[in-house]
């Protein structure tokens, strides 16, 4: 790997992140944070930009070819350093311990939405964060939600869109970050494709924020919630997540936008260009839609007549079908799209409902979306491949005829998909075991924490349910989970190649 070249591009990435961080200064000022907070946000942003500038300066005379190694190196180290430097405001402004700050930022950038902030979090100073999220200044809350938004469409894709050409092999960078087994290209140039995707992304964010704001949410909350929704992140400005508002209007708006954010943005772009039924012509989207509908109704029917506790600790006794549908649809879409918002504590739901949600965590959103998980297209491919393998017992000589959107899938892609599934499951089990070694006491918590991080979801079951946080975990467990989030966001291969000895030397 050409270390200088990677350093230079990662330096540019840090500058972009520093600039984004700088926007928290005016927000903090408008929202009336104390001048200390504003100054410290400014300092953090300056530190990030200075480090970015230094990296660029030391690697100014980089040369050489830009190959596969450099693409993977930039994606992995770009994300890692984004999380390291993005953590600075948490430490400077609210005195988080470094591992807590790193966890929170990594969870932000990877759009996981798992938080450590609760009413018993120990700070660097040895004090306890008394009233949870309410103690965090607005500027920092904004930065926390902004990390989601930056990471959602991808920080590397963002830099491809706004920075002048990083080199000719933009495809490698793009492929290293954009999820899904195969990538659609909208325009001949990667940079212009990236611009278009970010344009659609910004449009959705603005529309949702305006809709929430007109529905009565405060301006600040509506923007932060929109950031968390479109990026399928899950950080809320309320300790009780979306349940805190207890509004059907907000539930519906957020559900719809979570669902859209979990679908392929290329489809949205084509839809906006005037192709009205494009979504339902896409096989992956139909599958995604079907899974959503089936899960919502099966859970809703199970919940009728049961008691529900919302995240705001309000008890609803003997709920009817419509109320069951409201809570079930929000939770299903939130988990399937790997967002992680919550209105009800599904931890206390019947075992069937909780287990369906756990299964949805593995599936995740669609390729080309901002969601995590294994992706619907991969699951669909695996199902088709499995059927083919069964069929092959009889038709021994048949060639694989597996099609997605009428396009035959190459056996190279199929093998990669099968292997992806294998690595995904292995990683899930391996990290569950690791968590048990580092202080997680029960199996449900360990396993759900592992998949909630690997799939970039956020809340899980057991001690990390929707009303609880990751704050109680030991520092090593938090680091392990942070790494797992990165692994999940960059879809395994991009991060794993770093560990090959041949990656480093030619």
């Amino acid at each position, binding site marked *: 790997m050409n270390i200088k070249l990677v350093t230079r591009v990662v330096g540019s990435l840090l500058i972009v992140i520093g600039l984004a961080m700088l926007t928290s200064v005016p927000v903090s000022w408008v929202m009336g944070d104390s001048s200390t907070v504003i100054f410290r946000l400014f300092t953090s942003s300056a530190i990030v930009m200075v480090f970015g500038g230094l990296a660029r300066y030391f690697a100014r005379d980089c040369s050489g070819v830009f190959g596969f190694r450099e693409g993977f190196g930039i994606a992995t180290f770009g994300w890692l350093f984004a999380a390291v430097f993005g953590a600075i405001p948490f430490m400077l402004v609210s005195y988080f311990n470094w591992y807590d700050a790193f966890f929170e930022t990594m969870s932000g950038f990877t759009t996981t939405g798992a938080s450590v902030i609760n009413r018993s979090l120990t700070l660097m100073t040895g004090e306890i964060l008394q009233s949870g999220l309410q103690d965090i200044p607005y500027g920092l809350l904004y930065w926390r939600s902004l990390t989601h938004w930056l990471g959602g469409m991808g920080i590397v894709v963002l830099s491809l869109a706004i920075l002048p*050409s990083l080199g*000719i*092999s933009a*495809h*490698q960078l793009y492929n290293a970050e954009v999820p899904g087994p195969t990538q659609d290209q909208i*325009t*001949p140039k990667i*940079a*212009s494709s990236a611009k278009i995707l970010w344009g659609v992304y910004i449009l959705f964010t603005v529309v949702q924020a305006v809709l929430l704001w007109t529905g009565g949410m405060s301006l600040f909350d509506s923007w932060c919630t929109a950031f968390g929704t479109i990026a399928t992140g899950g950080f809320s400005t309320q300790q009780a997540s979306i349940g805190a508002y207890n509004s059907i209007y907000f539930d519906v708006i957020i559900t719809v936008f979570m669902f859209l954010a979990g679908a392929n943005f290329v489809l949205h772009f084509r839809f906006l260009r005037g192709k009205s039924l494009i979504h339902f012509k896409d096989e992956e989207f139909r599958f995604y839609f079907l899974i959503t509908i089936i899960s919502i109704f099966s859970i809703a029917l199970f919940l009728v007549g049961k008691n529900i506790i919302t995240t705001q600790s309000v008890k609803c006794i003997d709920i009817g079908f419509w109320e069951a549908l409201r809570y079930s649809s929000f939770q299903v879409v939130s988990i399937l799209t790997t967002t992680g918002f919550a209105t009800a504590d599904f931890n206390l739901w019947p075992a069937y409902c909780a287990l369906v949600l756990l299964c949805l965590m593995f599936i995740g959103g669609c390729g080309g979306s901002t969601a995590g998980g294994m992706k619907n297209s991969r699951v669909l491919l695996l199902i088709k491949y499995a059927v083919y393998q069964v069929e092959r017992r009889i038709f021994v000589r048949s060639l694989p005829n597996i099609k997605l959107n009428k396009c035959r899938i190459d056996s190279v892609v199929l093998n990669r998909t099968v292997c992806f599934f294998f690595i995904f499951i292995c990683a899930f089990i391996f990290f569950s075991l690791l968590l048990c070694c580092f202080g997680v006491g029960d199996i449900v918590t360990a396993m759900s924490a592992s998949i909630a991080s690997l799939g970039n979801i956020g809340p899980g079951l057991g001690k990390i349910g929707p009303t609880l946080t990751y704050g109680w975990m030991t520092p090593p467990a938090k680091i392990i989970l942070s790494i797992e989030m990165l692994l999940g966001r960059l879809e395994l291969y991009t991060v794993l190649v770093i560990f090959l000895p041949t990656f480093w030397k030619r």
Partner: protein
Amino acid sequence: MNIILLGAGEVGKQLAYTLCNKDNNIVVVDSSIKLLNRLKDKLDVMTIRGDCANFNVLVEAGIRNADILIATTGNDGPNILACQVAKHFNVKKTVCRLTTGDYFAGNHGYTPAVLGIDRLIFPEEECVKRIIGVLEYNIIVEKVVFKHSKAQITAIRISRSSPLSDVRIHDFPDAHLLSKIRFSAIIRDQKLIMPHGNTIFAAGDEVYVAGDKDSIDSLISFADPNYLPVKNIILVGATRIGKNLAGKLITHGYSVRLIEESAKKGEELLDALGENLMVIHGDPTDGDVLDEAGVGVCDAFISTSDDDEENILTCILAKKKGAQKVITITNKAEYVDIVPGISGIDCGFNPKLVAVNSVLNFLGTETARVHAILQRTTAYVYELTVKSSSPICGKKISDYERTLPVILSLVFRDGKIMPVTGELELKAEDQIAAIATPHDIKQLEQHFKKKRLFL
């Protein structure tokens, strides 16, 4: 510009590499996913898998907004069809690669323009012309000709026994001849160097010399006094280029023998060309077959089969068996660089590079266009036009000589070659030919472009 490239084979690949930059949006169409992925892994281009002549595929490739369509697949029919579709959508420039121009008849008004083609390229024919160009004299390794007044840039190899070896350019005996020609570039140990007055020619140098045909001929007869004319030629392979070459060589009066492994192909060739051609049926890598064809006494041996590796090895074998001048055809771009370094092979030609050459020539700007891609090194012969707004216009060459990265080889004014001396003052509409690498040309072009005020 929005460019659509049809065909991701060798020609398409090299064009994509040359044209891919920040100003061009390139879409490549091919039916082979393997060829497309090879491009996509390296370049910022969009690839579309499909039939190149298919209307829907072309629409998907964005033909509605395309500026240029380049049809470079190996099949004539689809290429022509694609150009027609392009003109239907008012694509500004269309380029069509064909094997023959026999589809059209200008005197009946049935021109390529009727089918929506702006520029036809015939890589095979063009390549054959270049090969015939180097057959004229033994020491010529490459020849680039110009339209005007028999001007040419010719590369000659200086042998150990040549009177030109160890001669300093300043001390060249014939001062009158020296004033009419210009030494433009030297390839020494496969590196391109720019000669100046104090440069001394060494044995093994390949010297690019520019001038009119007569002067260059006299230089060649000075450099190679023991010259014998080429008469007997052996070809290998009845491929498209082999057939074409055989036909042309016979009409030029050479005695031609062709070795072909397949009897059927050989018979087809005999049906087409018939007279004065001998086809030998056998494996060209078999020494006995070569001997039977008379390799030991032939003046030139040209291997034109479709298999690059076989061509190279056959040529080395022929050289060892005593062939005078050995020429190989290669198709892969990677081999262009190594063929000049193989001691057993005198010249190498790449028809794919010739195709790229023709396309680039058509796509050139008003001030600079590619005249020829050199086959011996990574350099181009550029044609530059002086405009009245160019900074270099009205200046003497000696004023610029030190700042220019290359030597100006030829200056044409009103269709005549001007003697290029330091005293020559450049005027508007002068045309200049220069050998330059793609890197140098950017610098050189600045002297010809209009100076922009706000940049």
